C-alpha cells in the first residue's frame, strides 16, 4: 500500500504532460480553465462572424447579401453560440482557474468530471455547427426557439439541435456540481463563507442557479422532441396543450440564465475595482446578500419576457412588480462599486478601464431593463430593437467586458508575463467607442418601431442602421487586437511579479503565489485561521 501512495505523491510533483494528449487527458484545473477560455475565445469569433453577416445585411434597407432563410439561421446561431458557447464557458474557465487558487484548494473537487464537462462542450457545438451542412439548414427559429416555430415549422436539423442542447446542459450541470462541491468542501482552513472572495461567492450562487434551471431547459427540449417526433401535444392547442406553455418552461430556465451570465461578472468587477482603488470593497456582506437576493428573485420574474402573450392581468402585475424589485439589490451593487472608488487612489490600467466601463454601461442596460419591466410600456417595446439594445448592453459591455477585464487582470498571474498596456488601452478605447456606436442607436430605432429578427427594414431606419453596422464592424475588428495582445503577452511579454498589481496586496490568495502560478498551486491548503498570516 505504501508504494502506491508514494508513486501517487510523485504524480503530484509532475508538471504538465507533453504533447497534445496533455489537453485531452488533463485533470488539472488550470489546464481545463485554459481549455474553456480558448474554446470560448474561438466561439467568440465564430459567433462574431455571424453578427458581422447580420450587420452587413442590415447595413442598408432591402435584401442584399443573404437570403432571409439564411439570415434567420445567422440570428439563431449567433445567439446560441454567444450565450452557451462564449459567455458561459468563459465564466466556467475563469472559475476553474481562479476558484481553487482563491480558496487555497489543491484542485477542483472532482478533476475527472471536470475534464468531461469541458470536452463534451466542443462536441455539442460541433454538432450544432454541422447542422449548417445538413439538409434543411441550421436551426432558424431564434435562440429562444419558441414553439410552434421550433416544433411544427422547424427544419429537420432541430433533432440535432435538441440533443446538442442536452449536451450543453449536461456540461453546465456537471461543471456546476464540481464548482459548488469545490467551494463548499475545499476551502482552506479558516476561510469561512463570509471571508470568501466575492468572485467565489458569485460563482457559488451561479452554480446553484445552473443546477436548478439547466434541467428545466432539458425538460423543455425533451417536450419539443416528443411533440415533433412522437405525436405528443405539449405545445399544440389542438390536443389540449398550449404553445405558451413552451414560453413559460423556457423562461423559467431563461431568466435565471440571464443572471447566470451576469453574477460572475459582479464578482470579477468587485475584485478589479478594489484592487485599482487600493481600498477593500465597500459593503462586502451587502454585496453577498445582493447577489443572493438577485438569484432568488430570478426564479419569480420569468413571465416579464411574455407580457404581450396574453396573460391574466394578475400575472402581468405580479411579474411587473417582482421584476422591479431586482433593481434594488442591483442598485446596492452599483452603489458599493462607486463607494469603493470614492476617495480611493485610483489608477486606470486596462482591467480597471473595462471594469469602470462595465459599471457605467451595465447600468444603462439595467435601466432599459427597468423600462421593459413596466408591463404597459413593454407592449410597445416588445420584439423591437429596444429589446436588442437592452440585452446587448448587459451582455456585451456587461458580461463580455467583465470577462475581458478578468483576462487582463489575471493574465500575468496565469502566464507569468505582462500584456502590452498601450495595446490593452487601445483595445479598450476602440471597444468602448464601438460598442456604444453599435448598441446605443438601437434604442432609438427600437423605440421608433423597428422589429427585431427581420432582415429588412423601413427606409426611416436606414441612417441609424448604417451607424450601427459601422460600429459593429469596428467592434469585431477591435477584438482581433485582444487576441493579438494575449498572444504577444504569452510569447513576448515582460516578466510579472507575484503580486502583479500594486494594489493587489492582501486582495486574495492568488496574489501570494508566484507568477505564473505553479502547476499545482496549493498542495496543502494554507492555514488562514490566524489572521496575522493572511494579510
Amino acid at each position, binding site marked *: 500500500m505504501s508504494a502506491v501512495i508514494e508513486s501517487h505523491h510523485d504524480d503530484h510533483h509532475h508538471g504538465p504532460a507533453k504533447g497534445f494528449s496533455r489537453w485531452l*487527458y488533463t485533470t488539472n484545473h488550470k489546464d481545463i480553465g485554459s481549455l474553456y477560455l480558448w474554446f470560448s475565445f474561438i466561439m467568440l469569433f465564430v459567433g462574431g462572424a455571424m453578427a458581422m453577416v447580420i450587420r452587413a445585411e442590415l447595413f442598408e434597407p432591402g435584401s442584399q447579401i443573404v437570403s432571409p432563410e439564411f439570415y434567420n439561421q445567422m440570428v439563431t446561431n449567433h445567439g446560441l453560440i454567444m450565450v452557451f458557447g462564449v459567455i458561459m464557458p468563459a465564466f466556467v474557465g475563469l472559475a476553474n482557474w481562479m476558484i481553487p487558487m482563491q480558496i487555497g484548494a489543491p484542485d477542483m*473537487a472532482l478533476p475527472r468530471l471536470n475534464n468531461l464537462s469541458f470536452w463534451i462542450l466542443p462536441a455539442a457545438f460541433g454538432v450544432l455547427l454541422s447542422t449548417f451542412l445538413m439538409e434543411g439548414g441550421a436551426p432558424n427559429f431564434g435562440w429562444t426557439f419558441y414553439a410552434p416555430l421550433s416544433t411544427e415549422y422547424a427544419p429537420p436539423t432541430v433533432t440535432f439541435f435538441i440533443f446538442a442542447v442536452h*449536451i450543453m446542459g449536461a456540461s453546465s450541470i456537471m461543471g456546476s*456540481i464540481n464548482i459548488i462541491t469545490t467551494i463548499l468542501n475545499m476551502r482552506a482552513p479558516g476561510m469561512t463563507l463570509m471571508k470568501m472572495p466575492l468572485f467565489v461567492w458569485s460563482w457559488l450562487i451561479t452554480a446553484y442557479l445552473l443546477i436548478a434551471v439547466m434541467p428545466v431547459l432539458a425538460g423543455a427540449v425533451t417536450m419539443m422532441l416528443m411533440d415533433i417526433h412522437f405525436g405528443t401535444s405539449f405545445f399544440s*392547442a389542438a390536443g389540449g396543450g398550449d404553445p405558451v406553455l413552451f414560453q413559460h418552461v423556457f423562461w423559467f430556465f431563461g431568466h435565471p440564465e440571464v443572471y447566470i451570465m451576469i453574477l460572475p461578472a459582479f464578482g470579477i468587477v468587485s475584485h478589479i475595482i478594489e484592487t485599482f482603488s487600493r481600498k477593500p470593497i465597500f459593503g462586502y456582506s451587502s454585496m453577498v446578500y445582493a447577489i443572493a437576493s438577485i438569484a432568488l428573485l430570478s426564479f419569480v420574474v420569468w413571465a416579464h419576457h411574455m407580457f404581450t402573450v396574453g396573460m391574466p392581468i394578475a400575472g402581468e402585475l405580479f411579474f411587473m412588480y417582482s421584476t422591479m424589485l431586482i433593481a434594488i439589490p442591483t442598485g446596492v451593487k452599483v452603489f458599493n462599486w462607486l463607494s469603493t472608488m470614492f476617495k480611493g487612489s485610483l489608477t486606470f490600467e486596462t482591467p480597471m478601464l473595462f471594469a469602470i466601463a462595465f459599471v457605467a454601461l451595465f447600468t444603462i442596460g439595467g435601466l432599459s431593463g427597468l423600462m421593459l419591466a413596466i408591463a404597459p410600456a413593454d407592449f410597445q417595446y416588445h420584439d423591437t430593437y429596444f429589446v436588442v439594445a437592452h440585452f446587448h448592453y448587459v451582455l456585451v459591455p456587461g458580461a463580455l467586458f467583465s470577462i475581458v477585464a478578468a483576462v487582463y487582470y489575471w493574465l500575468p498571474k496565469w502566464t507569468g508575463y505582462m500584456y502590452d498596456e498601450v495595446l490593452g488601452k487601445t483595445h479598450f478605447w476602440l471597444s468602448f467607442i464601438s460598442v456604444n456606436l453599435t448598441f446605443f442607436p438601437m434604442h432609438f430605432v427600437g423605440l421608433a418601431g423597428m422589429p427585431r429578427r427581420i432582415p429588412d427594414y423601413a427606409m426611416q431606419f436606414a441612417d441609424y442602421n448604417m451607424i450601427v453596422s459601422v460600429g459593429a464592424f469596428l467592434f469585431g475588428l477591435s477584438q482581433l487586437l485582444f487576441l493579438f495582445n494575449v498572444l504577444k503577452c504569452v510569447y513576448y511579454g515582460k516578466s510579472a511579479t507575484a503580486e502583479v498589481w500594486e494594489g493587489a496586496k492582501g486582495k486574495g490568495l492568488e496574489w501570494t503565489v508566484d507568477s505564473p502560478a505553479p502547476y499545482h498551486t496549493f498542495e496543502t491548503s494554507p492555514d488562514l485561521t490566524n489572521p496575522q498570516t493572511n494579510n
Partner: protein
Amino acid sequence: MSSESSYYVPASSKLPIFMALSLLLFVYGAGYTINDLGKEDSFSHWILISSFLLMWGTMFFWFSEVIKENDKGMYSDQLNTSFVHGMSWFIFSEVMFFFAFFLALGYVRIFAVPWLGGEGEKGIANILWPGFEASWPLMETPDNERFPGAHHNMSIPALSKIHTWLPFWNTLCLVTSSGTIALAEAALKKGNRKGFKLWMVATLTLGYIFVVLQSVEYYEAYAHMGLTLGAGIYGTTFFLMTGFHGFHVCLGAIILTIMTIRGFRGAFSEHEHFGLAAGSWYWHFVDVVWILLVLVVYVF
C-alpha cells in the same frame, strides 16, 4: 480505510475523453435514428448502439478505477465528502428535471385546458374550437381528428375496487422498497451481512415488480384504452411523467443491482459504503417523485 491525508488528484485520465466521444456519437446516432424513423435502409441506429456500448464500457472502467483507488486507501475523508456533495447536487438537478414536467402539467390543468373550454379571463381561446368542453382527464381533445382522445383514463377508481388498480400495487411496491433498502443499509452498518443481502434482494424484487407492472399498465393503455402518446394532452403528460419516472426507476434498479452483486462479492464495510448509500438516496428520490406523481397524475 482512508489513510491518505492529502486530497487525491489523478495526474491525468483517459476516461473522460472516451465518455465525451460516446456522447458525441450519441448525439449523431440519436439524431439520425429519430430523423430516419420509418425509413428502412437506415443504419444510423448502429451509431446509437455503438455510442451506448462505448458509454457503458467507459462507465464500467471509470467506476472500477474509483473503487480500486478507494480500496488502495487513496481517498481522504475530504474527498469522500466531495462525493456526498456531488451526488446530492446531482439528485437536486434530477428533481428540477421532473419539476419542468410538473410545471407543465400544472399549467395545462389550471390554465390551458380551462381557457380552451371558454373559462375565465382568457376563455376567448374557445373561439378556436367552439363547443370544446374542458374536463380533466381530457378524454376529448379540441381537434379529435389530429389527437384522438382516449376511451378510458388511469384515474383512481372507487375505493372498493382499489385492488384492481395497478398504481395501487405500484405504490405499495415502491414505498415498501424504500423501507427495505433502509433496512439493508441499517443491517450493513451493524455488520449483519446476511440481513443486508436479504433486504437488498427484497428491494430489487420490489423494484423489478414495479417495472413489470408499469409495462403491463402501458400495454393496457395502448391495447385496450386508446390511451397513447398521441391521445392529446392527457396521454402526453401521463406517458411522459410516468415514463421518465419509470426510466429513473430502471436506472435506480440497475444501480442497486450492481450494488447487490458487489455486496455479494464482499464489497462495502460498516463505515465505507458510499456507492450503496448514493444508490439508496437515488432510490428514495425516485420514491418521492412517485408519490407526488400518483397524487397529481392519478388521484387528483
